[in-house]
């Protein structure tokens, strides 16, 4: 699907494109997603028209030489405001020191070329926009050259560009800044020549981030930092149980606080709540906390973690809707009991808790509106705000603010946070309303990585390899009932529930995978690497168990079990072996090495960790990671993504790394009860090694996350002899 980059890359606009996007007319939003999985191809649809991207929406060269490059995705830590401009600047032959990134507002032209909505997620920033930004850079360069050639009355073929300067025959030269204005009047070329990778001087280099300084001196503004004239702050009282409705409100105490502007009921995505609007956040929060609200919880399911655990476990013992049925059904029964393993796993709800609390600012002006949101789903949020205000999307000017993390939490299909802000703004004409979800609201407010139960039965062949594998997964669907359902649900199974297992690269001849998507009154959402968070844990711990039983080295076992076509995984296992054998074979007493590997979002990762046990907890001394992500655009950001993703993945192993519910109420409140990894929980050293490649780049945001938990647990098992099948890891 992704074309490998050949030596001479001539790309025409009528190339094969994987875009398929359509938006319904009035009313609802209908987005067709064309996922890059063969199983989900839209059958019978004609080849979509090639997308034309106007360079002037992406590049602006100022008379002072500054080059503003518009980034079509949210910057929320992954470094896209540096890496996509690098791609464009490379083909543009721009002076990198003059490049200034800008985050694109919501607009048609900034939609993801593959998914047809403006978004960041699915580890697609580079992989989906790499070609796009190269073309934009090359086209702009061509137009600048054409403009110079025009002026000099020479052929563009005798001109060249380098470092923001066009050079012509006879020593002629002109800076981009001088040419820019005329260049925009040149016709946008239909074909462009892209560089050969050997010509790259930016792409592939460790280029430092452009936003570092501002993020170190307090000048970087995030959504929460917004300050506008006349702005008010809103905090909402949400029901203690999802879907609860306000029955009565005693706001006497709240209204007494100086600075409170208004208190009123609003509809929520589920149920109703009470909005408090005040001059200041602190006042709004105090007033909100001082409300005495009676909630109507009649007819509402009260989710309870221990009940759900029992229910899910029971479901996992029955066959669900079939996802994969490969090979011989009877293979399992032919395996003697001595060579059978039955394993049941349990995973809790997880909150994302990005460091910047959720927020959205909206100003409603009657016939138009303006919104400022650190959003992963700009066009969807824009559409939802418009709907809430009775406007058309194009009447909502939507600014993308820098976000303090996201991990999926700011990519919400129902846009509930911006919609809350819009509904409140509706009552305050011409007043910007900044809605803030205090941390407690975030921890208790739902949209979690769903809880899951797995049951796996393995029939081991005489050769120690799994001959039969029967796997049932239970977990809520993330997309059921949403516009994404049509694309992502097949045979009643949400693809995100089973990804990582359904597409396993292990060669298991008799493989049966089915799943249940029960309905639970807890809103759920994608959490960095989504289904892979639990499927990779199950598969990698079981494969390790098989390796131990076969008395084989865990890397060797995986090499043997992987399909030969799984080139990226083989490459990373080789690289991992090479880079970690030294320390793995020299571990001090009380230490063990743990191995894992996984491929997701097109990128393969292998991981080795050095673990000992301290105070009944795993102490991870070191992690070595090998990555195959195709052409590495910026090895520095890739290294950061992998170091960070490994650390993020450790959330799953924290002792207090679970959201639990009792009688419908979330039991945790803040970081004191739901505790992500701090510096001591993460290895001192994480060395990252990238397989050299010129294949099309694949994502790095999510692939690091699934490998770390199974690797650590595999090491623990070697230390204690115990199996760890229930997360979070409370005691070792």
């Amino acid at each position: 699907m992704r074309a490998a980059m050949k030596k001479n890359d001539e790309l025409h606009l009528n190339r094969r494109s994987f875009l398929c996007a359509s938006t319904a007319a009035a009313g609802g939003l209908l987005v067709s997603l064309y996922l890059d999985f063969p199983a989900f191809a839209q059958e019978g649809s004609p080849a979509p028209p090639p997308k034309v991207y106007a360079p002037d929406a992406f590049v602006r060269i100022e008379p002072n030489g500054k080059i503003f490059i518009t980034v079509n995705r949210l910057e929320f830590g992954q470094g896209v405001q540096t890496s996509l401009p690098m791609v464009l600047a490379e083909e543009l032959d721009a002076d990198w020191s003059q490049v200034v990134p800008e985050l694109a507002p919501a607009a048609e032209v900034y939609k993801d070329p593959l998914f047809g909505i403006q978004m960041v997620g699915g580890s697609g920033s580079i992989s989906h926009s790499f070609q796009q930004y190269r073309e934009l850079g090359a086209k702009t360069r061509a137009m600048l050259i054409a403009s110079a050639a025009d002026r000099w009355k020479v052929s563009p073929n005798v001109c060249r560009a380098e470092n923001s300067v066009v050079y012509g025959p006879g020593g002629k030269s002109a800076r981009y800044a001088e040419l820019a204005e005329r260049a925009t009047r040149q016709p946008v070329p239909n074909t462009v020549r892209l560089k050969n990778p050997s010509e790259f001087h930016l792409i592939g280099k460790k280029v430092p981030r452009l936003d570092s300084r501002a993020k170190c001196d307090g000048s970087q503004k995030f959504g929460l930092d917004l300050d506008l004239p006349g702005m008010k702050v809103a905090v909402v009282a949400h029901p203690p149980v999802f879907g609860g409705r306000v029955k009565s409100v005693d706001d006497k105490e709240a209204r007494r606080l100086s600075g409170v502007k208004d208190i009123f009921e609003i509809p929520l995505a589920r149920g109703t709540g009470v909005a408090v609007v005040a001059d200041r956040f602190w006042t709004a929060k105090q007033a909100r906390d001082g409300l005495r609200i009676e909630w109507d919880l009649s007819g509402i399911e009260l989710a309870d973690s221990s009940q759900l655990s029992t229910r899910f476990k029971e479901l996992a013992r029955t066959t669900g809707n079939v996802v994969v049925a490969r090979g011989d059904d009877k293979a399992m029964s032919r395996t003697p009991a001595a060579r059978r393993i039955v394993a049941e796993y349990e995973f809790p709800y997880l909150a994302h808790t990005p460091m910047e609390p959720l927020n959205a600012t909206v100003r409603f002006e009657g016939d138009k509106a303006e919104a400022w949101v650190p959003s992963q789903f700009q066009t969807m949020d824009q559409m939802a705000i418009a709907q809430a205000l009775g406007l058309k999307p194009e009447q909502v000017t939507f600014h993308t603010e820098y976000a303090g993390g996201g991990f999926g939490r700011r990519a919400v299909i129902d846009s509930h946070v911006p919609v809350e802000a819009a509904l409140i703004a509706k009552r305050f004409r011409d007043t910007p309303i900044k809605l803030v979800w205090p941390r407690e609201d975030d921890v208790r407010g739902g949209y979690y990585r769903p809880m899951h139960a797995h049951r796996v039965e393995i029939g081991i062949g005489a050769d120690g390899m799994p001959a039969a594998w029967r796997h049932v997964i239970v977990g809520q669907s993330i997309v059921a009932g949403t516009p994404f359902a049509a694309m992502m649900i097949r045979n009643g199974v949400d693809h995100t529930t089973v990804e990582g297992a359904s597409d396993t690269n292990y060669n298991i001849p008799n493989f049966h995978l089915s799943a249940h998507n029960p309905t639970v009154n807890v809103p759920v959402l994608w959490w960095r690497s989504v289904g892979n968070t639990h499927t990779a844990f199950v598969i990698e711990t079981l494969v390790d168990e098989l390796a131990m039983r076969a008395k084989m080295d865990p890397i060797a076992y995986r090499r043997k079990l992987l399909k030969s076509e799984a080139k990226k995984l083989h490459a990373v296992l080789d690289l991992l072996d090479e880079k970690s054998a030294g320390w793995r074979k020299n571990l001090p007493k009380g230490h063990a090495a743990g191995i894992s590997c996984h491929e997701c979002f097109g990128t393969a990762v292998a991981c080795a960790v050095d673990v000992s046990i301290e105070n009944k907890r795993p102490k991870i001394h070191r992690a070595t990671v090998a990555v195959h992500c195709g052409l590495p655009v910026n090895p520095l950001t890739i290294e950061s993504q992998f170091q960070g993703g490994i650390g993020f993945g450790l959330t799953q192993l924290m002792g207090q790394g679970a959201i639990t519910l009792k009688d419908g109420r979330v039991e945790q409140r803040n970081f004191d009860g739901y505790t992500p990894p701090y510096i001591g929980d993460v290895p001192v050293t994480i060395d990252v090694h990238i397989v050299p490649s010129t294949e099309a780049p694949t994502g790095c945001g999510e692939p690091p996350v699934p490998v770390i938990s199974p690797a650590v647990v595999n090491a623990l098992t070697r230390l204690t002899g115990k199996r760890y099948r229930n997360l979070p890891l409370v005691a070792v």
Partner: protein
Amino acid sequence: MLSNSRFFIRSLLIVLSFLATWIVLTASAANEGRDHKKLSGDANRGEESATFAEGLAAWEQVYSVLTSPRCINCHTATNYPQQGDDRHRHFANVVRGGPEGQGVPALYCVGCHQEVNADSTGVPGGLNWHLAPLSMRWQDTNDKPLSSAAVCRAVTDRSRNENMDGPALLKHHEEAVLVLWAWNPGRRPDGTMRTVPPLTHAEFVNATRTWVEAGTPCPRTR
């Protein structure tokens, strides 16, 4: 002449050593159950108004306060303080730091805990908020409170308790800022009030007085 004085001196020495032995035996009988290293004067005071048994009973009252969360959470045997009525490890990985128990740079106790309670944010406060030194630990390294006998020993051991005798202990219980704090512990972040020890401060002081007057007796080690 010489032999007479030698005989006299020898006799005197014998009488004196007999007297000394008698005193020591009497004193140690009175000090039954206590470490020999301290409070040697108290047992012989004539003004004792509490009996030994009353003193022991009073100590149990004192013990119930010392091992209540508001007190014991900072008298840990580990590298960290505790918080809450369930005495879980204090969040944010704060640690003891040096022997002064003030935390480490960037995470000194006083970086959050001010000189008075901050009820608007739910952080308790008192002058010079810090951990009691390890010599004053009242729990074991598994966070389990020590026995009454063990805590009594720790509290009365002058080599461990900053050289406080009975009257000094009483004054400490009456007046020390961080002790008084336990009865005015402020509001939690969720708005509810923290619980106070099982006795009022006045009751605690009275029990301490009775115990001190009895010579700070400790229960026998089980």
